């Protein structure tokens, strides 16, 4: 692997490398907007950019199905729900209400721990030999179809985790219904029309 020490590293840049840096810039810019945005709507919008950038990076490592699912679940699902919650909350645009952070000391401790972990991982991972173990690297991954293999794997080798995830989802759904119903009952006993379930 030729690093920065090689004088001709700029000449070795390929179109895919440039695209990667552009995409990474989008993701990092989005993440910064989430963290530093004073308005929560802008933070949510930054999250859109960050998730989109990460999805594009998945494409770079030949995981197009994961990229599409990322768009579908996180952007099309989770983020829309977040926006929904924001729009339904009054005066959420106030800077004082959004982005309440931890105090400086615990925040700093968490930051330092995470920074240490990331640096440790990036230094100890044998990047050069990843390709040797048959795993795709950013530079050399060919865009291969993955959806069929992932589908097969999900319904054979990973059936149990798959089913457990669906049970967890069901539990979450039932929990959501129960919470919603309780509020409805409080509202109706509080003197509204009492004929709603």
């Amino acid at each position, binding site marked *: 692997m030729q690093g920065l020490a090689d004088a001709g590293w700029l000449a070795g840049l390929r179109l895919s490398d440039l695209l990667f840096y552009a995409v990474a810039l989008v993701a990092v810019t989005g993440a910064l907007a989430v963290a530093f945005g004073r308005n929560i*709507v802008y933070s949510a919008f930054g999250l859109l950019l960050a998730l989109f950038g990460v999805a594009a990076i998945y494409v770079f490592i030949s995981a197009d*199905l994961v990229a*599409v699912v990322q*768009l*579908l679940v996180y952007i*099309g699902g989770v*983020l829309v729900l977040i926006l*929904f919650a924001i*729009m339904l909350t009054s005066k959420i645009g106030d800077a004082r209400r959004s982005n309440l952070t931890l105090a400086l000391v615990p925040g700093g401790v968490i930051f330092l721990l995470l920074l240490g972990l990331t640096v440790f991982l990036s230094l100890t991972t044998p990047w050069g030999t990843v390709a040797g173990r048959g795993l795709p690297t950013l530079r050399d991954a060919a865009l291969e179809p*993955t959806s069929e293999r992932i589908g097969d794997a999900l319904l054979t080798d990973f059936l149990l985790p798959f089913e457990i995830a669906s049970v967890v989802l069901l539990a979450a759904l039932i929990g959501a219904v129960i919470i919603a119903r309780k509020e409805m009952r409080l509202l109706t006993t509080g003197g509204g029309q009492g004929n709603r379930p």
Partner: protein
Amino acid sequence: MPSWWWLLIEVLVKVVLVLVPLLTVAALLTWDERKQSALMQDRLGPNRANIGPFTLWGLIHPIADTLKLFFKEDIVPDRADKLLHALAPILALAPSLIVYCVIPFGPAVQIPGIGRPIALQVADLDAGLLFIFAISSLAVFGVALAGWASNNKFSLLGALRASAQMFSYEIVLGLAAVGVIVVFGSVRMSELVARQATPLWGGLPSWGILVQPLGFVLFMVAALAELKRSPFDVPEGESEIVAGFWTEYSGMRWGMFYVAEFVEVSVLSGLLVALFFGGYHIPGVDPGWALTGHTVAIPFTSHGLAIAGWGWGLLMMLAFGLKVIVGDVVLQQIRWTFPRFRYDQVMSLGWKMLLPLALLNVLVTGAIVIR
């Protein structure tokens, strides 16, 4: 020139081949919509715009409308969020333009003079159908941000209604497509279309509408709801909430929402054609006639994509275009045929009727395919 230059040129040509007809048809659909509404309401419709003595049955109106929109004052409310207010129409228009890049508008063809076969599809993604759902789910952001950024109660109400409606019917849309995926055994758009050429009983092709009738009805209804057009136009609801999320838009920003709506009509029509009406296949024509006998291998599958001669490829492109336009007219006609649902009716239709039906469709389809 290096080979990736040729690839770039090929992709750009295909993008032009998709975008130019798409936007032209969108402009023509604005004319068609007004003529169709006039027909249904016993009026003449647009007939005044002219070049000299020629009015061309009102066909000049789309051009006049566009010019007018460009020169109209662009009013942004004083307390609006300027950045998001400007961004929202772009976010609404972009997804519908992107979606068309995975819909095949013709088979893979062998063009004389070019060595390798060319697929008449901008990008043949492995997870094509999922990509369509992923990208079209982005359209919600344009609408939601438009409503929020306008700083207007009616806009916000419209945006809330629109997001809830699009979110609910996306589920039905996806589940209705699952039936098609199960029957044809692929999420790759080119394969989904190619499989619909295999004969069914009595010489009928196995089009999606024949093997998935319930799936088709569900998909069609959910698609109409995604379009936010009557009978599902409560997000605009001009008799209730002024114009919903469009309220604070004027000039070309409003125009972008308007264009997005008509592009979406063509997108959903194209999707209906690709999934349920045999895509580019010409009814009555044995697809075997068109083939050159060669195939392009599809990686990780045991079969390949057949290559057609270029003449047949052209015919099939025309067939696809014709089907999409017929679909457009039918989708538009529905708007002028049915009255608007109430908001609670929209929700209960989606969650209490269509969703269980879609689940039933998946279950029955799965049972039949496994047996």
